[in-house]
């Protein structure tokens, strides 16, 4: 890690030196006062902040035949996946981190220091589009190196500052989630849905472990998420290699350990329906994780009826991952040799952004979500691991659904 950092610093210095000369030349054209304020200030930089947007909008304005909406507000959402209001909130979260470390080397071509808003916009655009750093940089009039550094700074800051947007809900919130699941799917005490997806990447041929090679011979990293009724992430595990199976991924997760220790999903343990989550057929049937009946098993109407209800509840997780990969296309594209230590942070920050959008009252446009399954190309392997208590709970749920119909 250490040598890499040195490299970065060196690169930054280089940029500074290059850009300094340009700055001197261009200073006459651009009023220097506004740029200094932009670099240092907070709320008083509104003028400059709108300036970056104006420049960006001008440069990337909709042309005939393009997908970009004509309306500026919609255009903003098209490029950054969120409203201006949510954007401001995100800026407020990371402002301290991005200002406290003055971007001495991060000067755009026009010679201005980058405002926090522009840094956030660059990072969001990189995550949202998944386009190369060069093309993202071109759309903002900054270099590839700037995009790289700004994006990573943003991710680091978000990982630290936005944690509260992704945590297991307290009792009060959990009650709401349970009641919503019961209202929508008639499943009592259902606390969420679990699913997992692969983040595909390329890796160098040398020094690449086979562990990253998944069932369809892609190099990938796994992400497992538990979501609530609004497709909002409650729990995330990522970083494990794609070669791992889903049951193994679950068993290595902190969530599994907490549940097995009785520290999570431990409500109503003695009642007919204890707290549980729903998962796909690739997950094991556990006392707190309910999976559907196997097709060969589900002979009765009740069982197939349960499977339908179960699939409906589970679809909130599938939808969440489709929205996640659709909104933050960097996760859906094949990443070119990412740093495997940094990739989990990128993934988690995308999940945080997903939650922030929901928390701020924004909504994800339907056309942003992936049109296909989030993990298309992968075969779901049926996990036949069955826990007797899980089986009993599933039978109770079948009876419950039957009685309520």
């Amino acid at each position, binding site marked *: 890690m250490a040598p890499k950092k040195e490299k970065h610093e060196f690169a930054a210095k280089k940029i500074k030196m290059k850009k300094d000369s340009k700055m001197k030349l261009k200073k006459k054209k651009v009023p220097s006062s506004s740029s200094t304020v932009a670099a240092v200030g907070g709320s008083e930089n509104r003028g400059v902040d709108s300036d970056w947007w104006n420049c960006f909008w001008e440069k990337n304005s909709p042309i005939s035949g393009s997908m970009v909406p004509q309306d500026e507000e919609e255009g903003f959402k098209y490029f950054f996946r969120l409203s201006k209001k949510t954007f401001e909130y995100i800026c407020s979260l990371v402002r301290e981190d991005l200002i406290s470390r003055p971007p001495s080397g991060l000067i755009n071509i026009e010679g201005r220091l980058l405002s926090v808003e522009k840094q956030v916009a660059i990072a969001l655009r990189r995550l949202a589009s998944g386009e190369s750093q060069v093309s993202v940089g071109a759309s903002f009039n900054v270099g590839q190196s700037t995009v790289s550094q700004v994006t990573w700074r943003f991710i680091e800051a978000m990982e630290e500052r936005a*944690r509260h947007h992704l945590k297991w809900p307290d009792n009060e919130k959990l009650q709401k989630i349970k009641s919503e699941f019961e209202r929508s799917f008639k499943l009592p005490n259902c606390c969420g849905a679990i699913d997992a997806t692969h983040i595909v990447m390329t890796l160098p041929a040398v020094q690449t472990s086979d562990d990253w090679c998944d069932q369809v011979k892609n190099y990938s990293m796994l992400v497992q998420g538990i979501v609530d009724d609004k497709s909002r992430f409650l729990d995330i595990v990522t*970083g494990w290699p794609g070669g791992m199976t889903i049951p193994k991924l679950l068993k290595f997760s902190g969530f599994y350990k907490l549940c097995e220790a009785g520290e999570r999903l431990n409500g109503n343990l003695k009642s007919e329906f204890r707290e549980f989550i729903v998962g796909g057929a690739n997950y094991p049937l556990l006392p707190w994780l309910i999976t559907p009946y196997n097709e060969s098993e589900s002979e009765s109407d009740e069982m197939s009826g349960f499977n339908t209800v179960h699939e409906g509840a589970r679809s909130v997780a599938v939808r969440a991952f489709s929205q996640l990969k659709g909104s933050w296309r960097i996760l859906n594209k094949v990443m070119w040799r990412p740093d495997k230590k940094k990739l989990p942070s990128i993934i988690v920050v995308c999940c945080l952004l997903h939650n922030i959008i929901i928390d701020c009252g924004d909504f994800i446009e339907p056309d942003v979500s992936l049109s296909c399954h989030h993990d298309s190309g992968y075969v*779901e392997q049926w996990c036949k691991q069955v826990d007797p208590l899980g089986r009993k709970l599933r039978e109770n749920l079948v009876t419950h659904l039957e009685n309520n119909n």
Partner: protein
Amino acid sequence: MLCSKSSKWLNRLRSSRGFPDSDNINLEHFLSNSLDKIDPQTSTDPSLPDKRPKLDKRDDSGAIQGREVMNNVLSELFQMGEFQDLSRIKRKKSCRKQQCPRICIVSTNSNVQNVPVGKDRVSSPPPSPSPFPLTLSNRRTAKEVNRELTVTGHVEEEEKGHWDLTAYSQTEVTVIDTSVPSWKFEKMLYRRKNVWKVGDKKGKGLMTSDRKKRKERLNENGDVEKKKLKLCSSLSKSGNAEQGGENKKKKKKKKKKLKMCNSSKYEDKEESMARSKSPQGHEKAKTMVANHEKKQDNSSHVQEKSSFKKQIDGGSSVILIKSIPTTNKKDISGILKSCVKSMQK
């Protein structure tokens, strides 16, 4: 070719081996005739082949079997044409190499099972060293996954104990798990086919990463000192014998370790040694010991050890040590005794 010219010695050789004497013998003729005359049980030349075994000439089943085997082996090796009893060779081959090594993973738990949902597609668990045989049925795939899951339970038991890491591939992983308070942690992932184990990267990393990294990490955590202290305390137990016979250089080296030693027993000896060497340093050494003992009473923190170390470095004790003559074990023990006596006085 075997021979075109006949000679007496060759004829003698032929006849001694039971071959015909005729001159017009060629390879084919030789092969076809020679093997018939070889008794497999007595033959010393197993390399003689027969691609067209004449079964009717022999009633001895053992001989026939032996010849068949030889034929088949030679036929396969040199592609001499059809060979009989194909299954025999196949069977022999399959014994040498497993068709699917994964099946050998021992299953202990029958509850844990896994079956592919996509019935029309064979989805083998990915990173197998050799490609999965195409002839495998879905059923087989399911069995495999069953075993994999079964192993999972077994692994967790193993994780607590010791396991041989040499057979496992290692991958460093950085994991973010929001159910873990710190969110981010690094682990060492061990894998052997479908068996996955997780180890603490810190411990394992010490073995694999370069020294620089190790130093950095350890300095940050202060583990270096702790380890050395442990080493010293273990040394102290067997340290008595080592003390006497060492030369100055060794003593110097050892002293460095001793400075950080946790064992009061060992330190006492060191102090007493120092005191006995020079009366000048006696007072300083005394205060030093007093100071150190005080500190030890309070707590045995590493920082205190390092301050003690500084005292030794800065004080006269270094000079005192230098003045120690290279003596044998007995001499030193004598000095120690005298020192103890002087202390008692």
